[in-house]
């Protein structure tokens, strides 16, 4: 039996890992565009994710303190859950997480939006 230890830089919420990934992406983009400071970043967070926006903002704030990203605002836009029916090919908003087509009753449906977790735009100086 083997035990592997992974150590911190992570807190007890997974928003910490997500903030860490976000910071890496922003850092790369800032270097690429020779930016000195981050003013804001726009995120799309799908309704069907397990992200608490307040926790993500909190983690981001803590982890960027003292960096070129300090004080930047995270603008989090929640993307509603949408699906397409493979039977009747209509697109609809999924209500109460019920994955059933409201038009023809089929459950052969495909999620088309609402599982996003992406950075869309950032404003820098």
């Amino acid at each position, binding site marked *: *039996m083997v035990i592997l230890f992974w150590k911190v830089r992570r807190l*007890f919420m997974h928003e910490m890992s997500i903030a860490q990934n976000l910071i890496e992406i922003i850092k790369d983009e800032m270097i690429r*565009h020779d930016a000195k400071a981050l003013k804001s970043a726009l995120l799309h967070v799908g309704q069907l994710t*397990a992200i608490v926006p307040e926790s993500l903002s909190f983690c981001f704030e803590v982890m960027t303190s003292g960096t070129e990203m300090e004080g930047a605002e995270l603008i989090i836009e929640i993307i509603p859950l949408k699906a397409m029916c493979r039977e009747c090919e209509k697109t609809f908003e999924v209500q109460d997480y019920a994955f059933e087509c409201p038009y023809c009753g089929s459950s052969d449906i495909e999620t088309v939006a609402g599982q996003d977790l992406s950075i869309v735009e950032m404003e820098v100086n």
Partner: protein
Amino acid sequence: MKISVIKNILEANDRIAQENRTIFDEKGLMVINLMSSPGAGKTCLLEKTVDALKDDLRIGVIEGDVQSSQDAERIAKSGIPVVQINTGGACHLDGNMIRDTFQEFNFDALDLLVVENVGNLVCPAEFKVGEDFKAMILSVTEGDDKPAKYPLMFHESKVLLINKIDLLPYVDCSIEKIREEALKINPHMIMFEISCKTGEGLEAWYAWLKQETKSRRSA
């Protein structure tokens, strides 16, 4: 200055998970990401499953916990290869942690690798590790309101094992409601009603798992 980015924030993990997946595919190894809240019976189900199937399938296990090696010690008793990951605080396993265990396994000598994720109904659903599919356990003592409260986990899991059904007479939990709510979120979910304590319902799970692993091996 505004910069348009449009990047999946978890792409780094998704990429590593995909690399893991490629390695598993090359070895024809079936990999299950097993998730549930703490105490739902993940390790117990694994002990029973390994005992029942170890003559038919060569099974390996990765145990994920915040701390301690108790789960790996339990699994190691059955004599199969097991690696314990202590996340040191993180509430989920990710692709990188799984990749770090590869050197400890001989994948050529395995048919099935089960990754027992950290006990949590929220976070693990968000992070791929390179699995064929996710399976989850819900025990009846947790209540029948859980699918509605944790839709992502139920949406992402191919299999739901409803555990501790021997305790149904003592708890206010309706199996029908669990089934109904889970199928609303995930109409194709495969469900097993089991008791790891009495063994009820486990034969159906063993037979299904054996069949799935064998068809994966021959694919």
